[in-house]
């Protein structure tokens, strides 16, 4: 049986292509895609998996074939053929990877732009008006929910500090109705996320309506944290002294984890909460119920995570005495706590429910 090598090459090529195309779509390695951004990222990931798996098969295959076909026979003291290289072949395997990585770069760049990554390009170079400059991670401008312009952004009810950036006005896809951007402040502290909604609600969990762009203004109170939504494929560090920002659009209702992804201390692994994506009606119901409770004098932060094992509930909750304070270091926190020495456990009636009276 003597198959010409060109046919073998062809068959191998077909097999590798089919196998990688199949694997690129069926790896099943990503969690459900719950945001518009996630679908974009998954497209990129699948492409890279296809190429990567093909390369994997080719090179590992070549290694295995070489190991079998070119093993030294017992007692053979001779040398292999004297082949110092092959310039055309070397050019090919320099050029092909170069083209491939260039392609992936361009594709990534495109995805990044469509996710809104370049949207506020000039922000960071613009002189910051407020004490901290604002960093934009995302502002999606995709599909039927195109992005508002930055000018629109500036007129929307965003915190003043954002306005300076918004005037930078880079590359956003116009069209989103003014004010459609729900803007939520998120503060990271050891070991919880505190969400402050526009209408004064403060919560330990993130509620958002589906299919509506949401803006998160991220800050950290003590050390670095990172705000990660695995099902949304977005992540942004929370940096003390420098606000950062994430904009995304949920496309699937459900409850998903919110994870801290930057080492922030021993209980970093426990720094998690949930994001609850609801229909606009359900979201409104939740907002109303919280507003009613607040009107009735309930000033608690709901759904704070449990205290780590080695700390008392009080020690833990002390961190949250004033969640939106601008304090950024433990020293200032300690100072703050001395102002509240008159507090006694009795002042924390909801402690066992992991809720806490806010302000003072």
């Amino acid at each position, binding site marked *: 049986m003597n198959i010409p090598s060109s046919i073998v090459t062809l068959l191998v090529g077909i097999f590798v292509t089919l196998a990688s195309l199949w694997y690129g779509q069926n790896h099943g*390695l990503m969690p459900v895609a719950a945001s518009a951004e996630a679908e974009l990222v998954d497209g990129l990931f699948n492409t890279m998996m296809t190429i990567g798996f093909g390369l994997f098969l080719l090179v590992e295959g070549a290694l295995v074939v070489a190991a079998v076909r070119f093993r030294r026979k017992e007692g053979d003291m001779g040398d*292999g053929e004297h082949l110092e*290289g092959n310039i055309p072949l070397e050019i090919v*395997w320099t050029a092909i990877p170069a083209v491939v990585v260039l392609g992936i770069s361009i594709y990534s760049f495109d995805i990044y732009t469509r996710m809104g990554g370049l949207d506020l390009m000039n922000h960071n170079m613009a002189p910051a008006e407020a004490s901290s400059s604002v960093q934009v991670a995302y502002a999606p401008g995709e599909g039927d929910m195109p992005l508002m312009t930055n000018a629109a952004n500036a007129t929307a009810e965003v915190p003043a500090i954002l306005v300076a950036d918004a005037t930078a006005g880079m590359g956003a896809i116009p069209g989103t109705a003014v004010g459609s951007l729900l803007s939520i402040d998120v503060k990271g502290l050891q070991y919880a996320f505190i969400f402050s909604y526009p209408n004064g609600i403060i919560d330990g969990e993130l509620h958002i309506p589906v299919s509506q762009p949401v803006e998160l203004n991220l800050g950290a109170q*003590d050390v670095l944290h990172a705000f990660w939504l695995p099902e949304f494929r977005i992540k942004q560090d929370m940096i003390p002294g420098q606000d950062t920002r994430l904009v995304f659009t949920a496309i699937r209702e459900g409850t998903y984890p919110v*994870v801290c992804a930057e080492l922030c201390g021993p209980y970093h692994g426990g720094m998690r909460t949930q994001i609850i994506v609801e229909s606009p009606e359900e979201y409104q119901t939740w907002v109303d119920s919280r507003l009613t409770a607040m009107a009735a004098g309930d000033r608690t932060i709901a759904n704070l995570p449990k205290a780590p094992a080695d700390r008392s509930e009080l020690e833990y909750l002390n961190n949250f005495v004033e969640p939106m304070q601008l304090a950024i270091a433990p020293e200032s926190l300690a100072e703050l706590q001395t102002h509240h020495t008159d507090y006694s456990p009795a002042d924390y009636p909801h402690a066992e429910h992991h809720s806490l009276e806010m302000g003072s």
Partner: protein
Amino acid sequence: MTVTTAAKTPASDVPMLLGNERKWTDYFTFCTDHKVIGIQYLVTAFFFYLVGGSLATVMRTELATPAPDIVTPDVYNGLLTLHGTVMLFLWIVPAGAGLANYLIPLMIGARDMAFPRLNAIAFWMIPPSGLLLIGSFFFEPPTAGWTSYPPLSLTTGMLGEGIWIMSILIGGTASILGGLNFLVTILKMRVPSMSLTDMPLFCWAMIATSLLILISTPVLAGALILLAFDLFAGTAFFNPTGGGNPVVYQHMFWFYSHPAVYIFVLPLFGAISEVVSVHARKPIFGYRAIAYSSIVISFLGLIVWAHHMFTSGTPPWLRMFFMITTMVIAVPTGIKVFGWVATLWRGKIAFTSAMLFAMGFIALFLIGGISGVMLAAVPFDIHVHDTYFVVAHFHYVLFGASVFGVFMAVYHWFPKMTGHMINEFWGRVHFALTFVGMNLTFMPMHELGLMGMNRRIALYDPQFTDLNVLATIGSYIMAVSTIPFLINAAWSWRYGPKAPANPWRALTMEWRTLSPPHIENFEELPVLTTGPYDYGLGYIAEEDPAELYEHAVPAPVAG
């Protein structure tokens, strides 16, 4: 394939010294012989590998269950920080330096390094640096990870963090002195007949490594000194409380630490180029491409650092710039991998332990390289940054390439270093266990990261338990795999069959002197007669002259 000499010492003869004898006590002294220093580095580094591996085993045991039960989260972070720091600064860097020290002068026909005293000083900085670091664990372990980002690193305890900084400053200084020495030695001390393109590829790789060390390590030192000021003097370079900027630290840290990953792996890129060629008996495929790609990697390696900071406070244009440079670095790296595979192709592959580790190296490094290109793509990296996907990626590179590379090098040069052949059967067992254990430990971590498991955590979501159990089992297999190696190396060093000068019939110069080499390396400086990889041209490596051994006493056992 093990060639052994039948030459035995006739007991009746008057012992004659060959001039390559060393007392074992020499290895515990301030000795300026590069060969002694090389072995000192390697043995010390291996000791720290065992330390780092033990720490990893405890960590994996803790991670077998979602709850933080075996050790407290605090202790876990201490283990994590020490594991990372020990593995990088006390195992891989010194192991690479050890190989370079041992091999460079022999490969280029020099009698020693350019600055022998400096060389000894550099080595003797490693033990204090390591002891400091390990000592810190018993007082107040540093717990901010090997990256030690402020502000966290400023809040976790002054003593531990201070010791950590001190230890790395000492280790970094040693590394700079070493790099300087390698560079000058390679450039200035070759035998006159050897041009740069006649050098073994290991020397090219060490030029690239040394350049990186010299350019980037001082920046790390700067960052750490500023961090120490923040820590002890209350300055606010990086401390946001006083108006400092923690992101600046990250830039400075990665300005060193990305090039550092090439410092960890380039020496082994060099070593594998020697091994595949010799054990497949074929010239290295594309000598110039492999040589120059090392230099290109070392240049590009300096301008990719911010790919570790895609989710930090990094402006969009910066993200795009660093994405493209990182992608581009895949090209010279690919050239090397393809070159090694093509060298094997149509060779005569001997499955020595060295060759097995070399093939494992290529197979695993490929996986780390593919995931590396994926990580360069900003939109994807934003999802997996700081997750187990990254842990999987860098272990495929650091373990799959660097550690496999060190073992490969040890099996290959063991006869030269010790004068004894190492047992091949146990070498293969070592390889099989390591290879299986490595994949079982780190392959599942890709999926864990993609699915949502963040790194550096002592407690995790129970949905991830199964894959973590798998990883823990793999780590136990790896822990076991070091046992055959340890016993084999120690036993063979003492009792292994006497090694001839050139057991692999190799053409590079280190094989043209005794095993172990003369104290002065060569009795008479060799003259270049063949290129380093001229297999297949009919050159036959010289056999040891029989009279060499006739009157000789066996070289005393080292160590």
